[in-house]
């Protein structure tokens, strides 16, 4: 397939890996931010072929994994309200809330539907004028433009029965929090190519210069990741702290301007809780006052519940790059994709799920 096979060609991978071996002289800890990259790495086994000096740690870049328990509980409460059609990406259905997940709510009679785009939820709202249609708007900067467009369009059409339960998270504030933490050991970042496609590179330049870390905006295929890693190691070895763009076939320095404008129109920056990490200042998006009537949390008056996460789940540490999934005592035993304890095991982009799938316990 065009523009895919080349980026997975093992011959190319071997050459880039050899090149990484050649340039690496010191130990380096590197984080790949995006969950899609984590999967590509574990699936292709790249991590096994790198010089022993390089430690890859998996970052918080799985939107499903960082969605807080409160949001799931709110989603379940709304889905269980009479007359509601609750729409979500499929990945969210099995994410455990404090006592159950959306799938269980569905078996108990809630009308929960899987959609692939917020526009499908909008279509359901048009087709069901007597029902309230709620879309679970989660994700990073990549999903925000679509979620903004659905609200803009609902406003344009005067759709009174559409709303979104919003849990949008932003990558740069999370990187700043990780970098400011005394426990931080990451020296360079592979930034998520699709997030950078939307946001551009400005904020990353600021982070690179403030925290003296090199960053490479990197694509999602194995060879993209290897090339990004090579660019990163070259910067680390020569002491440069710049932002480079490996994924130039998609990422423009200014990002996607129409998408950024739409997000800005509908959403404002707000403090946001991350599952397993806690509240990070300015790390989320909230619907602006002008569009408040599309805010499902207001429409259904769902209160934030204080809930605790399963004690033995260390997904918070995993999301911060402090632990790896196989260091969790429950991994592959009490916690599997069939009966997950934490979101990093449920989500197809979660680090625990990647390890379970591609690196089973010996």
């Amino acid at each position, binding site marked *: *397939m*065009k*523009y*895919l096979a*080349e980026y997975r*060609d093992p*011959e*190319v991978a*071997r*050459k*880039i*890996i*050899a*090149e990484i*071996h*050649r340039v690496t002289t010191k130990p380096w800890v590197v984080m790949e931010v*995006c*969950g*899609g990259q984590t999967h590509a790495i574990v699936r292709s086994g790249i991590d096994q*072929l790198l*010089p022993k000096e390089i430690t890859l740690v998996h970052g918080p870049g799985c*939107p*499903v994994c960082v969605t807080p328990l409160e949001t799931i509980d709110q989603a379940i409460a709304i889905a269980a309200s009479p007359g509601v059609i609750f729409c979500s*990406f499929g*990945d969210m259905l099995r994410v455990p809330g404090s006592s159950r997940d959306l799938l269980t709510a569905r078996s108990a009679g809630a009308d929960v539907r899987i959609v*692939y*785009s*917020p*526009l*499908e939820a909008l279509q359901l709202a048009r087709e069901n004028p007597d029902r309230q249609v709620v879309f679970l708007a989660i*994700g990073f900067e*990549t*999903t925000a*433009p*679509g979620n903004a*467009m659905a609200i803009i*369009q609902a406003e*344009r*059409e005067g759709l009174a029965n559409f709303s979104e339960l919003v849990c949008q998270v932003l990558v740069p504030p999370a990187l700043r929090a990780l970098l400011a933490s005394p426990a931080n050991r990451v020296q360079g970042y592979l930034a*998520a190519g*699709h997030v950078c*496609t*939307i946001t551009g590179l400005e904020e990353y330049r600021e982070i690179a210069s403030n925290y003296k870390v090199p960053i490479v905006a990197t*694509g*999602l*295929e194995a*060879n993209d990741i290897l*090339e990004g890693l090579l660019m990163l190691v070259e910067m680390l070895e020569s002491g440069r702290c710049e932002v480079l763009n*490996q994924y*130039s*076939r*998609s*990422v*423009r320095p200014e990002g*996607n301007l*129409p*998408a950024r404008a*739409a997000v800005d129109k509908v959403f404002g920056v707000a403090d946001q809780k991350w599952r397993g990490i806690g509240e990070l200042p300015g790390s989320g998006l909230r619907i602006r006052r002008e569009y408040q009537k599309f805010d499902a949390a207001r429409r259904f008056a769902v209160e934030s519940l204080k809930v605790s996460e399963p004690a033995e789940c260390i997904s918070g540490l995993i999301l911060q790059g402090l632990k790896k999934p196989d260091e969790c005592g429950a991994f592959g035993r009490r916690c599997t994709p069939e009966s997950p304890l934490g979101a990093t095991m449920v989500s197809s*982009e979660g680090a625990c799920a990647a390890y379970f799938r591609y690196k089973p316990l010996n």
Partner: protein
Amino acid sequence: MCLAMPGKLVEIFEEGGLKMGRLDYDGTVNKVCLEYVPEIELGQYALVHAGFAISILDEEEAARSLETWREFNRLREKEGAVAFDNRPVKVGE
């Protein structure tokens, strides 16, 4: 959620005031919203996230990275380097 694979634009149409299109992924055709890539033309490749095209694939840039990799291959073959070799290898000037 991230679909890394680019699809080729085979149809453009309007729906409810939004610019929409169909992308062909080697025979599988998906409907996407094109509002965020307004300048896209038929035959171009786009990257999609949750039903929205988020960028037009820059074929020149794509070709450039593939060319770099080919160059890599050529240089390393000339040097007779062994893949996974841990020893320092000199790459041509």
